[in-house]
């Protein structure tokens, strides 16, 4: 038997070997961009509660916006390459990853999947370049986990549509040029491609968030917004329209959350090896090792899970409930890892000098959006029992 090499603490199970050269190059490219462009500034952005809009152009130049879509200026990459990109972006900050997820997996995906040829030509190439930014308006003040009850209404006026209602917690809202608005139409839930500049459309950014601060979250108020008949996404009808988009975005964030977790683990590991208390590195204490090892186990398992789901998606057989499995597990363990890493850092862990509390706070949002823990638990519960606990 040949002697096995000592495992690398940062890639313990050699998952790197499971990637193709192209996937590795994609990952390394996104990682380099995050290192150069995000890491030097992110603590400041987070503190100031901003995300510079010009990042969208750079992300467009890299080809990351709608990268998993084909045609219309999109790169058409595989699911794992897309997942790895989300992981690297979120290893920087969940806010940056959210910008990309909402643009690519929600707004662009909705147009790509459900839109007409004219809508695709009108919006996708510029959105892929980051010249126009999209947002996705599903949640409302009174309808979050239960979007089926939404109050936003679309009614006919001649051949036009008139839309009234309020959307809440909308990522990218304040910087968006276009919104995908889901509304109750006479024949059920319908999606509309609405330029944000039209009369009757107001956007109020939500201030005072303590999570995902380097991301714009907004309220969209539509009062008597008039759009032509061809603004409707023709082939989407019912809740399956927005849910198909959410499934795409959830896939991205089951990878992304592992990126945030990885940064927390690496930071805690490094800190534990150098921080001295009682005359030795705290990493030498059993209780700290237990924390670090627990992080390592969940990080590696979660990453393996992401990769497995990615390969399934590439083969074309990934069920939404399996995506829920990944979202539920990976965001939950990422939060655990972040909190444990925070503890390892002691007082340093509560400052923005280290990335950990930023990730920890961000992951609270990641845990809530795209379906809360409870919602995914119920989806899985229904999938294995055949019984719905929703209503």
């Amino acid at each position, binding site marked *: 038997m040949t002697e096995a*090499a000592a495992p690398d603490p940062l890639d313990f199970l050699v998952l790197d070997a499971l990637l193709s*050269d*192209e996937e590795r*190059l*994609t990952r*390394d*490219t996104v990682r*380099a*961009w995050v290192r150069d462009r995000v890491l030097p500034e992110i603590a400041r952005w987070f503190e100031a509660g901003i995300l510079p809009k010009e990042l969208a152009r750079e992300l467009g*130049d*890299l*080809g*990351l916006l709608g*990268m998993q879509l084909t045609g219309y200026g999109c*790169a*058409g*990459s595989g699911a794992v*390459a897309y997942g790895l990109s989300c992981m690297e972006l979120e290893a920087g900050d969940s806010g940056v990853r959210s910008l990309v997820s909402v643009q690519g997996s929600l707004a662009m995906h909705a147009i790509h999947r459900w839109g007409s040829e004219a809508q695709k030509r009108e919006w996708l190439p510029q959105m892929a370049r980051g010249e126009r930014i999209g947002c996705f308006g599903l949640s409302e003040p009174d309808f979050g986990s239960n979007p089926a009850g939404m109050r936003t209404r679309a009614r006919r006026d001649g051949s036009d549509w008139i839309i009234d209602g309020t959307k809440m917690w909308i990522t990218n809202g304040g910087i968006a040029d276009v919104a995908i608005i889901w509304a109750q139409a006479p024949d059920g839930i319908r999606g509309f491609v609405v330029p944000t500049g039209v009369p009757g459309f107001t956007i109020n950014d939500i201030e005072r968030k303590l999570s995902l601060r380097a991301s714009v979250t907004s309220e969209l108020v539509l009062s008597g917004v008039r759009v032509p008949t061809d603004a409707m996404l023709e082939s989407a009808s019912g809740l399956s329209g927005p849910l198909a988009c959410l499934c795409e975005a959830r896939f991205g964030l089951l990878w992304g959350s592992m990126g945030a977790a990885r940064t927390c683990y690496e930071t805690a590991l490094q800190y534990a090896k150098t921080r001295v208390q009682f005359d030795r590195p705290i990493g030498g204490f059993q209780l700290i090792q237990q924390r670090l090892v627990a992080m390592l186990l969940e990080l590696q398992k979660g990453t393996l899970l992401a990769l497995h789901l990615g390969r399934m998606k590439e083969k074309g057989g990934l069920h939404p409930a399996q995506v829920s499995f990944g979202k539920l597990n990976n965001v939950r363990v990422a939060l655990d890892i972040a909190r444990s890493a925070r503890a390892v850092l002691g007082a340093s862990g509560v400052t923005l000098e280290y990335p950990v509390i930023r990730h920890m706070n961000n992951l609270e949002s990641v845990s809530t959006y795209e379906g809360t823990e409870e919602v995914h638990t119920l989806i899985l519960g229904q999938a294995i029992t055949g019984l719905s606990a929703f209503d």
Partner: protein
Amino acid sequence: MRIVVTVKLVPDLNAEKRIDPTTKRLVRTGMETVLNPYDEYALEAALQLKAKQGDDTTVTLLSMASESLKETLRKALAMGADDAVVLSDDALAGSDVAMTSAALAQALKKIGFDLVICGGLADDGSTGGVPGAIAEHLGLPGLTNARHLEIVGGTIKAQRETDSGYQAVTCPLPALVSVTMAVGEPRYASLKGIMGAKKKTIATLSGSDIGFENRAPKTELLSFAPPPARTKARIVEASDGATGARAIFDFLRERKLV
């Protein structure tokens, strides 16, 4: 117009390096190999020229390397180079500046070029001698240390960095230039570039393909030694900033440094 960029494949800067005591060569197995960072600037300069010159300008990479490392060039293809040539021959292993430059010059003759762009230095060997030597072998004008390039008609104009400023120089093509890091940060590969790179060709040439055989390096490595271990730093415990500053000042004055 054909621009050829010479690219060395070097061990990752952050990798722990080991020299085999018998061959006196760097052990490359199990070590991540990357594009020589200085050559990424050369590629960036080439891609900038290509963008200005238009589509009939091509950028070819030329690397003398073990064939097993050739996939490392994929990143440079993803950044925008059109194709690559690897000069690979066991007889070339352990080449010195003279032999490397002679072999590359020979390969360049075979490939054909209007302009050769080199990085200023290799991250591992750090001689900086190869670009000038290639120019000499090919009888080309060699503009080294360029921080800006422009092609005007059949000539190249360059700004050469010097200690006190820069010189504006020009020469007819074909020519060789080496660039500094002031040409601009190497671009990121784009996703489309990455996906397109797998379709680009990496051709292989051997010593006999270019008529370069039975040569030996002119220099011999006699011995090598790791850098001396650093002595332990002296840590001054000071009750407050002023006392600490005093201690540092005394230390420096003792050595006549202030």
